[in-house]
């Protein structure tokens, strides 16, 4: 029964995502809002791969998100006018950084791990901020555009056509989500959950825990840098604030808000967060206060997130 309802939810989510360009304008939104939700949802799901399914609290994923964004921007601006190549470069940049930093921190746990990830994230922020000639410094990296796709004879104009670009990001999202889902169902994914539930016992079973956490961290960085790269493509712009610590906090709150124990939860969290931020920043100058209060309210009243609440209700 549970299995059937799981398939049903997945089918429903895909049906909603695929039809976004048809119903979103009718609901008073615009297509690029949907694009942003999908991209930030991917980022939050990648963070949750580590947070919810491995039980490791990283509070510095903005670094890899931002590296993905700058990787894309720099590639198109200085190297090659190709969107897929740029995304690949952004992912490589973010993943290599994740591999190196991951190796330094896998022995740490809990609060200490969180603190070190936050602090390391700031290095890239300062590099982007200070290296003005290359990164554009505080003004961000602009003066480049995403290139139309060319698949043999087929050309897709993702630059001029917002709907085409939405579907392009949705395809990227689908590939990433599918890989994460397959990984989580594999013995590797089950081992990650075992580490989350009881690290010591898993270690006694002979599992190399540090290697698993490192790999989970790197996978998480890989997909979050893909999300960052796509996010830079939305406005053809990479911003140093994408790298800053408050962005990391946003990803974590999306994951918590949606439900950390659920695969799709972070996507729901991203939807609520993006719509709320969009609405608040158009309504009031003091949107920061509202976002802050929102954070606190989630912690105090909805610690299990939306999905956790729904599951609890249906169990009762």
């Amino acid at each position, binding site marked *: 029964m549970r299995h059937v309802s799981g398939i049903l939810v997945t089918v429903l989510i895909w049906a909603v995502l695929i039809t976004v360009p048809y119903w979103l304008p009718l609901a008073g939104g615009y297509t690029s809002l949907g694009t942003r939700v999908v991209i930030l949802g991917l980022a939050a799901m990648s963070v949750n791969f580590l947070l919810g399914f491995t039980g490791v609290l990283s509070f510095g994923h903005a670094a890899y998100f931002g590296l993905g964004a700058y990787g894309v921007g720099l590639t198109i601006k200085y190297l090659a006018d190709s969107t897929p190549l740029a995304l690949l470069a952004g992912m490589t940049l973010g993943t290599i950084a994740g591999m190196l930093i991951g190796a330094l921190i896998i022995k740490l746990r*809990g609060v200490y791990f969180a603190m070190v990830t936050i602090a390391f994230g700031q290095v890239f922020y300062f590099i982007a901020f200070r290296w003005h000639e290359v990164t554009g410094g505080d003004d961000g990296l602009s003066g480049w555009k995403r290139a139309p796709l060319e698949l043999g004879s087929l050309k897709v104009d993702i630059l001029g056509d917002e709907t085409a670009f939405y579907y392009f990001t949705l395809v990227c999202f689908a590939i990433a989500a599918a890989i994460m889902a397959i990984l989580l169902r594999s013995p590797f994914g089950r081992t990650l959950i075992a580490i989350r539930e009881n690290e010591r016992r898993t270690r006694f079973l002979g599992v190399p825990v540090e290697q698993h956490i490192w790999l989970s961290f790197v996978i998480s960085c890989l997909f979050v840098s893909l999300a960052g790269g796509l996010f830079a493509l939305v406005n053809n712009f990479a911003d140093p604030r994408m790298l800053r610590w408050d962005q990391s906090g946003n990803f*974590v709150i999306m994951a918590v808000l949606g439900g950390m124990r659920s695969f799709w939860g972070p996507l729901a969290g991203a939807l609520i967060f993006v719509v709320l931020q969009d609405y608040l920043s158009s309504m009031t100058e003091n949107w920061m*206060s509202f976002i802050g209060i929102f954070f606190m309210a989630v912690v105090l009243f909805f610690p299990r997130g939306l999905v956790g609440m729904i599951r609890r209700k249906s169990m009762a």
Partner: protein
Amino acid sequence: MSQLVLFNLFNGLITGAFYALMALGLSLILNLSGVINFAHGGFLALGGFLAYTIMPYVGFWGALAIAPVLTAIIGIVLEQLLIRRVYGRDPLYSLLLTFGLAFVLEDVTRLIWGAQSVPFQVPSYLASPVSLDYFFLTGYRLFMVVLVLAAVTALFVILTRTRLGLRIRAGTLDLETVSVLGVNVRSLRTLNFGLGIYLAGLAGVLAAGLLGLQPTIGASLIMPSFVAIIVGGLGSLPGTLLGGLLIGIASGLTTVFWPSATEAVIYVMMGLVLLLRPSGLLGEQGRLH
């Protein structure tokens, strides 16, 4: 050249003293309650702005004495209302809660005092240089170093010579036993939080005199404080002090040779420390959690 080096060395020492003051407060709270207080920078800014507001009535010295106490009181109220609720829960929740609080504090500060930087006048006898050859050695800078030293000494005296300090240190090691021995852990945590926020408020007043005041002043000082704690070693207050001074001096010296790496150098230091000694310079081995 040597004067330039000396200038930046001294500057680095002052910056390091700031980091240390802020990091010590963070460390106190983290060690006893397991909460990383993201809002610490917000309290620092609050301390500075409160001093700015009351200075016309009570003068510089009055503001220096009163503003940190007011900040600590606000801190205690917020601890009672909010932060107390996440003690003992997954660190994820205290991180997100104080993260939200940091946003609110910064925004409220901006709402009350405006987004622009406001001037903060220190007494003229403190602002003038001590010697013409070493123009950068203003009385205020020397005064700051002395005051930070005094505050740190007082903190260590409180921690080692008073009953409260004894309980805080014991609670850091084993809170459950302390509780069983009849100490009210709830009020111990509250007092300890107030003490940490007092240090943030004090750092705020001093920073206001040196850097001028704007709502984002705290946000720019909080990350280096994290680094100071990690470099010095989690769980060790002397380590935090050492870490703060070291990274301050390192970034001061880097300014001479490679100005654009001023901020980044401390993170490189952190990476090196984690590589060579994961528990930090003075941290105990095996206390990585």
